[in-house]
């Protein structure tokens, strides 16, 4: 050992290694700063139809140096993050959650969790608003959102006037069948009747989401009730349906990607777009057929909020304005193939993605519902939890 320490070459090697590590570490902290634009360059570089954030927002965001995001892993295209870092020289520090309930639990345990951006759902928004943990959106700092966000979305039930949230994508929580195993011309498809009664066809190869509000909500939809019902009689009916269905449910899993791809699962309840986007991995012909039940289904909006613990809310505004540029929003939709509320992007979506998205017919959204507080608070939550616990016996 002593010999080794005395050896000059070893010391040179160790020194070189430390130097290389230090240089690479410093380099990682200076993401894109060399290419970062000044405010003037930023304004000049914007494509037609896009507006810049005010100088005040830009300068605050850039001065903050980092932007802490909390979102899903491996969902949005990476080029969106890289493009933002490159354009503004702000380093994105990402953290990911396995599900939104777990993310909410994080804020429940530490209200000052320092994220500038959180991609979440209306349930979390309701709780966070109640706990007074959300920053309000400065509309003057997001001109592209103001311009391109659809009017009906601006007044949506989860946040009228979009004072706390900005919508990114809209998912339809219905079901998908694999046409290699199930005849897509079955007369019960695409109604809920097939999912809740068609086990003679799908041979118990059904996977339901592992989320009580969504599963019970869609069961209520099948029965013709509101998915936010708090009526004990209606919920009891939903319980009976689920108990009857349980022997035919292979598993409760919110993202059974492997099993779906392997053909282990023939029918799956969940956000249809997630499975449609798996189609591109499945071969030349997409085997997954989206089923939008005529009675409607659960609508899953993904919303950006700014938790109060964040250190750089200006960066979040800058990012939202950047995201709502039609070219960037098209990158998002071309990557995830979800529904959305952007009015200036449709011409930019690739033809194959439009085909692959298979959106529901016009006006379908009106038949759908978003989870509202009666479903996940008070008596509604208690009754749903009791059903769910009985189901997992």
């Amino acid at each position, binding site marked *: 050992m002593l010999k080794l320490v005395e050896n000059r070459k070893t010391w040179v090697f160790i020194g070189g290694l430390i130097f290389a590590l230090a240089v690479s570490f410093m380099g990682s902290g200076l993401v894109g700063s060399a290419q970062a634009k000044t405010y003037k360059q930023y304004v000049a570089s914007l494509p037609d139809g896009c507006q810049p954030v005010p100088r005040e927002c830009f300068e605050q965001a850039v001065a903050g140096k980092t932007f802490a995001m909390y979102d899903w892993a491996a969902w949005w295209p990476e080029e969106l993050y890289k493009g933002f870092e490159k354009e503004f020289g702000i380093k994105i520090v990402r953290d990911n959650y396995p599900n939104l309930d777990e993310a909410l639990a994080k804020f429940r*345990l530490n209200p000052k969790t320092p994220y500038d951006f959180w991609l979440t759902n209306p349930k979390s928004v309701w709780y966070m608003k109640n706990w007074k943990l959300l920053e309000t959106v400065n509309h003057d700092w997001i001109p592209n959102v103001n311009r391109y966000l659809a009017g009906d979305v601006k007044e949506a039930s989860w946040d009228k006037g979009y004072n706390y949230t900005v919508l990114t994508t809209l998912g339809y929580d219905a079901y998908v069948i694999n046409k290699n195993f199930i005849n897509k011309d079955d007369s019960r498809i695409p109604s809920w009747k097939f999912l809740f009664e068609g086990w003679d066809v799908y041979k118990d190869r059904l996977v339901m989401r592992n989320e009580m509000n969504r599963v019970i909500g869609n069961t209520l939809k099948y029965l013709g009730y509101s998915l936010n019902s708090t009526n004990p009689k209606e919920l009891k009916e939903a319980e009976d349906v689920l108990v009857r269905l349980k022997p035919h449910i292979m598993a409760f899993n919110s993202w059974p990607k492997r099993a779906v791809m392997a053909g282990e699962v023939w029918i799956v309840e969940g956000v249809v777009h997630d499975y449609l986007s798996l189609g591109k991995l499945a071969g030349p012909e997409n085997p997954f057929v989206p089923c939008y039940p005529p009675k409607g289904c659960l609508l899953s909006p993904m919303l950006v909020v700014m938790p109060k613990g964040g250190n750089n809310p200006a960066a979040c505004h800058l990012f939202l304005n950047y995201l709502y540029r039609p070219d960037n929003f098209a990158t998002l939709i071309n990557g995830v193939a979800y529904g959305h509320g952007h009015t200036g992007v449709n011409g930019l979506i690739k033809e194959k993605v439009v085909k692959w998205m298979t959106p529901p017919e016009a006006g379908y959204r009106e038949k759908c519902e978003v989870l509202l507080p009666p479903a996940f608070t008070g008596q509604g939550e208690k009754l749903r939890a009791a059903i769910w616990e009985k189901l997992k016996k």
Partner: protein
Amino acid sequence: MVAAKNDMKRKTHLHLLPTVGPITIWIFFFVFAPVAVIVAISFFATGSGGEILPRLSLENYRLLLFGGSEYPRAVIRSILYALVTNLICLGIGYPMAFWISKYGGKFKALLLFLVIVPSWSCYIVRIYALKQLVGYPGILNDFLLNLGLISSPINILYTPAAVVLGLIYIWLPFMVLPIYASLEGINPSLLEASLDLGATPQWQFLTITLPLTKGGIFGGAILTFIPALGDWLVPLLIGGNRVWMAGNLIEHYLVVRGKIAMASSMAVILTATVVLLIYVFIKLGGEESMERIV
């Protein structure tokens, strides 16, 4: 004289400090302190939104134990799963350890290595390996179908049996090792003496080998029982989340329902159950069972 004795004692303790000090600090901060926090939270009341209210109460325990909650049933179910796992692990693990000890010869080290090596890989990787093995499409089903032994794939995954299979697969090495250590610790002259006195191999096993490996059996039982009881990933990933064990219900209360204080009470009840059962195991297995665990 007394002063000298005290000085000696202090010296002995000081001598221990560098060796047991760091681990004591570690255990204090990362085992006892979190458990203390959980116990403390469990006595706070829960608000309507799941928030912890600054009011001490036994309400959580009352609701869980006497309020018609599903939790006691989930704990009993978990105990049953863990016991079945234990018994099957013993049924497989004892003969395996016995065979390695008695007939392993120069391959003993290699055979033990093969027993241990799966546990070197990540827990989740092992679960997914099992899914590949028994799922459909999967190695087992494909094999049986190709041989013509079955006409359609068997549904093994996502059943209560799959949960037990998963628990056995994960925890079996922890049963084999203590039993093997016990078997290796038996003085061979005792076995020779029994044969000299006319014992048959079966009688020798029942009257000498088995009683002398009691510590290893109970040590292995503790090592497999505790993690199997608190497991929630195996029911989630292999059981398809169709049947909950106590750990899944705790996760449901903590994460989905956001009732942190209630979930803490559940964790305290489960921990108390485990401690009680370990006490029973140690009482039955004697001090040697603890030695085998160590």
